[in-house]
């Protein structure tokens, strides 16, 4: 089943994608599958094990099932301070 996912990119992912957000139609079942799909398409250098994922503004496990209309953010390694 395909679903429409809103993705927001930050930092190195935003630069590698060349935009800050987009809506993508995917058949990926989980956040993990979805990142693999995007990484293959856009050549993101960071593997999933260096990232965290947030679904609808909350950190979530990589195995989270995706639902139509979900908002996803892939969180590159942080560096505040």
């Amino acid at each position, binding site marked *: 089943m395909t679903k429409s996912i809103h993705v927001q990119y*930050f930092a190195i992912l935003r630069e590698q994608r060349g935009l800050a957000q987009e809506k993508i139609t995917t058949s990926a079942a989980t956040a993990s599958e979805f990142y693999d799909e995007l990484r293959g398409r856009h050549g993101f250098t960071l593997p999933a094990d260096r990232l965290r994922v*947030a679904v609808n503004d909350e950190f979530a496990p990589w195995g989270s099932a995706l639902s139509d209309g979900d908002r996803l953010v892939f969180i*590159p390694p942080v*560096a*505040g*301070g």
Partner: protein
Amino acid sequence: MFRISPEPLDPAALQRRLLDPRAGACATFEGWVRNRNDGQAVRALDYEAHATLAEKEGLRILAEAQAKFSILNAVCAHRVGSLVLGDMAVWVGVTAEHRGDAFDACRYIIDEAKARVPIWKKEHYASGATAWINCATRGPASGIPPAKPQ
């Protein structure tokens, strides 16, 4: 209060939020933009954040500090945007009855914020190269090799 700020931080205003007649100690920490990192001359930094998630995670850290230490109040503010040398990137302030818990909680908050809050830092080097800190995927595992100039 945990706040992501696109405006310059005002330590005096932040500290006023902590005023409390029960407080006998106020420990503060300021993080400044410095001119070197990993042997590279740095001339500026860009910070960006996922503000919603950052403020949620930041509030969790402040609540943890309240639970772990005997403190009265805690505030943290982190700048986003383009910063130059000497600019303040982060401010943490903690009040307590006594200094020990104020120092310990202040240290806990800045350490956890650096490790967990979705804030990213891009360094601009004197050489013209740039790098997103902690995001390198090539080169020595212990170092953060800067990207080649575009």
